Structures are given as structure tokens and as C-alpha cells.
């Protein structure tokens, strides 16, 4: 008797349901909350896959920092009401159809591959541990790690450029 499949199914259903709710919620704040719930479900999957580090980061960074930022912006803009006017019904339908078709196509294309016999290692395996990841990150992956700093630098500069208020004086100088 293995409990893993049950956890898997539970988390999956939760993730899907929350995602659907996120997309369909009219109130942005609800959307954020449903998204956070999705993230939790995904984190649960990570734990199931024994990717502890990622599970933690996902909660802290995504569900914690990023989603709070979203929430913050929504609050700032006072968008926490169901103000969003609805898109053209047809466009919505087509959009949903297109997304559905994509899913269908991908699933149909991939379902009968040899992938069927493959298993993902659940519950065990050391590669998700901080120790292993950290060692890799600072040896083989040090170059991308360093370079991602550039990404942050540019994002920082960018946010500063965008965020600064343009005044006539600054323009003149």
C-alpha cells in the first residue's frame, strides 16, 4: 500500500482546480489567491519528487515574494473589485478553444510515445537536496550564476528608469 499516488492525485487536482479558478476569477485578488494555492500544490509535487530546495524556494520566492508584489500592485491600483469588463464572448470562446486545442494536440502527440514506460523517481533521490544543488551551482553552473547577476542589474536599472518620475528639470539637464 503506497500513499504516493493518492497524494499525487490530490495535489494534481488541487493544482488544476486552483489554476482554473485563477483564470476564471473576476476579482484580481481572488486570482492572486488561487494562484498562490496553485503554487502550494506545485510545491507539494516538488516535495513528492524529493526536490526539497525547489519546494522551499517556490514557496518563499513565488508564493511569498512575487505574489505579494502582485497583490501589492493590485491593491495599489485599487483593482480589488470585479471591475474588469468582459471580453467579447466570441473572442473568449476562441481563446479557450485555441488553448484547449493546443492541449489536445500536445497530449495526443505525446501520449503514445515510449515515454509511457518511463517513471519519475518519487520520494527518494538526492539530487534535489540543497547540498548537491549548491555544489553544482558553484562549480559547473558558476558562469550562468554570475551572469544572472547581469540580468538582475539590468532589471534593477530598468525598474529605476521606468519607476523614476520624469520632471521638467531632469529633462533639461
Amino acid at each position, binding site marked *: 500500500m503506497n500513499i504516493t499516488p493518492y497524494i499525487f492525485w490530490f495535489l494534481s487536482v488541487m493544482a488544476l482546480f486552483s*489554476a482554473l479558478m485563477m483564470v476564471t476569477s473576476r476579482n484580481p485578488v481572488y486570482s492572486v489567491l488561487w494562484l498562490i494555492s496553485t503554487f502550494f500544490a506545485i510545491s507539494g509535487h516538488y516535495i513528492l*519528487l524529493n526536490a526539497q530546495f525547489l519546494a522551499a524556494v517556490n514557496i518563499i520566492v513565488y508564493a511569498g515574494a512575487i505574489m505579494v*508584489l502582485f497583490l501589492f500592485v493590485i491593491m495599489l491600483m485599487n483593482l480589488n473589485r470585479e471591475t474588469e469588463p468582459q471580453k467579447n464572448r466570441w473572442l473568449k470562446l476562441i481563446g479557450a478553444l485555441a488553448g484547449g486545442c493546443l492541449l489536445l494536440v500536445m497530449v495526443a502527440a505525446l501520449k503514445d510515445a515510449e515515454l509511457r514506460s518511463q517513471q519519475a523517481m518519487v520520494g527518494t533521490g538526492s539530487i534535489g537536496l540543497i547540498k548537491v544543488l549548491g555544489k*553544482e551551482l558553484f562549480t559547473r553552473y558558476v558562469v550562468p550564476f554570475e551572469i544572472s547577476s547581469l540580468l538582475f542589474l539590468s532589471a534593477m536599472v530598468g525598474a529605476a528608469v521606468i519607476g523614476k518620475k520624469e520632471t521638467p528639470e531632469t529633462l533639461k539637464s
Partner: protein
Amino acid sequence: MPINYYLFLSLALFSIGMVGVLTRRNAIIIFMCIELMLNAVNLLLVAFSKMHHLKNLAINPMIGVDGQLFVFFIMVVAAAEVSVGLAIIVMMYRNVHSVDIQFLNRLKH
């Protein structure tokens, strides 16, 4: 777990995110949908990493680390993107007091 399950789950999440992008008008929610898509990718990456790990356990126990590290980098990038993206949305909001992308139609044809 069969890898197919993970594959279809994340494809489903990915598609849900995509449908959100296609159907919503609020820029922030669209952005959130994109984040959902990224998370679907992350999940699949982790699953694949575990799959390869399982497959090659005997040859090289380190196989599969790449996938998880990639997820880490995706998160990094996502964070950077969020900072810039939200800044842009706020700037937009400052100018037009709306984040409805349907009003973004000065540029066309």
C-alpha cells in the same frame, strides 16, 4: 510515478495559463497567467530531472541535477521579469489609469 502523468499535468497547467492569457483583459492577470505557465514548466522540468536521474542512476548519479538548477534559474529570471513587468504596468497605470489591455490600441495597422 509514470512520467506521463506529470507531462499531462503540466501541459494542462500550461494550457490553462495560455487560455488565461488569451481570454483575460487585465494586464496583471495576464501576467499571472504567464507565471502559471512558467510554473507548469518548472514542474515538468523537475519531473524530467527525476526521470533521467532514475534512468541513469547506475551510470551517473548526478544526472538530473541540471533540470533542477534550470528551475532555479527560471525562478531567478521570473523574479527579474516580475520587477520589470510590474514597473511597466504601474507606469502604464499612471498614464491611463487602467490596466486593461483592450485600451492599448493607439498602435495598430
